């Protein structure tokens, strides 16, 4: 028995869910078609195989030729339709939901208590599934699998690539969660077994492993907040000063600075695309580009109106002022997404601040352009590059994203609020207040999260605001 257990440990319990391993375990599946775990793995293998071959058109024929397992069902579909059979359970029939129902006390993770670890892991898994909108996700996966199995899929390689990418990314998420569940029940089995066999070393090893999983899955809770279709994209952040002259223009530049610093802290690339300075201080409006994984997923929490209360340094009478700034965030869709087609002939490209004769008579480093998309009236401009050509290219990128955003809003694929452009954001839609006088505080009006140190927030310490917003807005959605 203990020999057998060791054997299991080496292949399953201590298994790291790497793709190589899944590949390996797949080779068993055709020999043991009735083993549900093998089927589960072969599905995962299929997803790995599929995502690594998505650019290879020739792959489709291999896939169609070999996709069926001996019982005749297609891997992906079988996996999904036999989900119940796959649900991980302990030897004595305890499921992850079952663990939650036991209501074991969750103690601090420094306590060596396996029930506490197990309970915490089960709670996290539950939360993650909720955040991922599990049922919807599984349904989507089923739809995608069905499409992937169509014989004519690769007749349209662009569409096929999109489907296969989405399937791959959803599959990764499912794979992750199910691997955690599997490990959880296996370790519980192991602990019970160790007790029966009186093997404290084995038991403590598994308790330790549970602790590792518990910490790891806590981090995954956060990741699961960013599961929206475009969350992983880079984005543009736009800021516009409200009424109130120099004071609110100064506030706009403070807000912009806050985002630049936030983005730098997160290791994102930041570049100013467009900036319209105020006459005396601050900015009227500005656009920055934030480059990096999940930039949009986080920054979208900032959409809305930000309010500042302070004694204005621009008021000689030292009165208290309230000013407003609107923030919009636009995802920059990756190459895999469908972009709105822009017709050259629909564009009007103008030079900004072109005074005088131009050409040889003028020497200037000012080469800003504004591009207008005539059918929609949407404009974009860029002035921070050093050549007109690059300014035009940057402005085109902004225009493309704005048009894509408009199209997304039209298709209502995203939370309506996040697709709003700067001009559509109502000044009534206040999301956060920053008070510097008479007391000091920053408070998010959506979550009631608040801190008493505005300076650190204005220096880009925004993550807590963002995460509390993301979790409240997602977790309150009932599935």
């Amino acid at each position, binding site marked *: 028995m203990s020999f057998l257990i060791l054997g299991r440990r080496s292949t399953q319990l201590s298994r790291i869910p790497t793709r190589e391993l899944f590949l390996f375990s797949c080779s068993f599946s055709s020999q043991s078609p009735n083993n549900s775990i093998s089927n589960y793995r072969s599905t995962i293998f299929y997803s790995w195989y599929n995502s690594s071959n998505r650019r290879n058109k020739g792959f489709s024929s291999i896939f169609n030729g070999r996709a069926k397992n001996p019982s005749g069902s297609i891997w992906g579909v079988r996996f999904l339709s036999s989900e119940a059979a796959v649900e991980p359970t302990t030897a004595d029939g305890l499921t992850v939901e079952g663990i939650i129902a036991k209501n074991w006390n969750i103690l601090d993770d420094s306590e060596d208590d396996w029930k506490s670890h197990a309970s915490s892991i089960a709670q996290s898994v539950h939360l993650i599934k909720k955040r991922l909108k599990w049922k919807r996700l599984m349904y989507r996966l089923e739809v995608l699998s069905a499409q992937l199995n169509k014989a004519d899929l690769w007749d349209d390689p662009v569409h096929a690539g999109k489907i296969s990418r989405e399937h791959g990314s959803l599959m990764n998420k499912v794979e992750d969660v199910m691997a955690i569940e599997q490990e959880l029940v296996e370790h519980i089995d192991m602990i019970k077994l160790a007790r029966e066999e009186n093997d404290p070393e084995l038991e403590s090893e598994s308790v330790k492993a549970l602790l590792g999983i518990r910490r790891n899955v806590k981090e995954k809770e956060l990741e699961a907040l960013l599961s929206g279709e475009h969350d992983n994209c880079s984005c543009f952040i736009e800021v516009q000063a409200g009424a109130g002259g120099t004071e609110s223009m100064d506030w706009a530049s403070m807000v912009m600075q806050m985002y630049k610093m936030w983005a730098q802290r997160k290791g994102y690339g930041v570049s100013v695309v467009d900036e319209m300075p105020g006459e005396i201080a601050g900015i009227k409006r500005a656009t920055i580009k934030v480059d990096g994984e999940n930039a949009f997923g986080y920054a979208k929490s900032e959409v809305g109106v930000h309010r500042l209360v302070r004694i204005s340094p621009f008021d000689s009478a030292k009165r208290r002022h309230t000013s407003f700034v609107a923030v919009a965030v636009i995802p920059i869709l990756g190459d895999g997404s469908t972009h709105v087609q822009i017709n050259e002939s629909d564009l009007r490209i103008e030079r900004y601040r072109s005074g005088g004769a131009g050409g040889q*008579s003028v*020497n200037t480093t000012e080469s800003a*352009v504004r591009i207008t998309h005539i059918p929609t009236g949407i404009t974009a401009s860029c002035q921070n590059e050093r*050549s007109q050509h*690059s300014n035009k290219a940057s402005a085109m990128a902004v225009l493309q994203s704005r048009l894509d955003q408009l199209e997304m809003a039209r298709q209502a694929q995203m939370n309506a609020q996040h697709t709003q452009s700067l001009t559509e954001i109502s000044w009534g839609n206040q999301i956060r207040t920053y008070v510097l006088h008479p007391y000091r505080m920053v408070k998010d009006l959506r979550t009631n999260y608040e801190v008493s140190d505005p300076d650190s927030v204005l220096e880009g310490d925004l993550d807590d605001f963002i995460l509390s917003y993301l979790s409240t807005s997602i977790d309150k959605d009932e599935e």
Partner: protein
Amino acid sequence: MRLTKLSERRLRPACVSKKMKLSFIRPISCCSVSSPATSVKPQKPIFLRPPTFKTTISDLQKWHHWAKSLISSVGSTFLELDNGPDSELLLRELNWLVEDAIETPKSFLQQPHKNYNDNSSVAVRASLEQLYMLWKRRVEERMPFQYVVGCEHWRDLVLSVQEGVLIPRPETELIVDLVDDAIKENGELREGLWADLGTGSGALAIGIARILGTSGRVVATDLSPVATAVASYNVQRYDLEEKVHVKQGSWFEPLRDNEGEFVGLVSNPPYIPSKDIGGLQAEVGRHEPRLALDGGASGMNDLIHLCDGAVSMLRPGGFFAFETNGDEQSKFLVHYIETKKQGNFSKVKMVSDFAGIKRFITGFRGR
């Protein structure tokens, strides 16, 4: 068709003798590394120099602070005087100078106001004295910013420029787009021989060479030895020695060998009327070479010469694009071509720049 043959034949004897003479006199004008010692040595732009100078953050901040105070004293006086730069533009230029001159510009620019006692050292591509001197010349002598940093960002290129060479203008970028459109319509143009007349820094020649096919070539000519030296340097920097040949000489003269073989001609010749030169913006009038600007009494001496010469240089179906001073010159030239060069060209038209000024004329050699 027969007419051109005749004129070609008539030209030939003169051509040959000139060529023979030239082969004795003319220095090696192709962009070879072995240019004679007498030729102009191109200067390296600041951003390409090694960061061999060491200075402290605090000294650099003092310089930066001084440079900014110089800027704020300008306000909008230059703008009102001759449409020169205002302080906002100068501030942006100062940031670019910092970007070009300091090895780690980001960390410096992000906290310029913090403290003045930071004695940690920074690596810089020009000495502090040079930085003071350069910025002083920028503001007090109105030296163009591009001569200060030794380069101009043009299209997706960074071209080396120095006094004696015209700084390529943003308007001129569009000529490359016009060529691109023509190439897309007629694939033969992609693989043929092009000429950029009066190449200056080599901007057009390089921009075009980069969109031509593998067998496409560009001959770039200029009368100015500084221009040919700088153009050759830029061609080298973009690894285009195979594709772009820089030759010194007046307009079509260096091209006589290939008369009638060109699939495309582009040029941004001097086009400012002589009487306007005195009133130019200081950056242009005081610093840029007159040879690059002055187009004679009407401003169109060279443009007319180019229109005349294009007939015999271009192959049937070949494309031309010339930059002009604006609406008036463009209209005149289109009319000139339609009446005086009747039948030689087709699809002659004017094209506007992004300011809405009819900046270019384009057309095709008739087939």
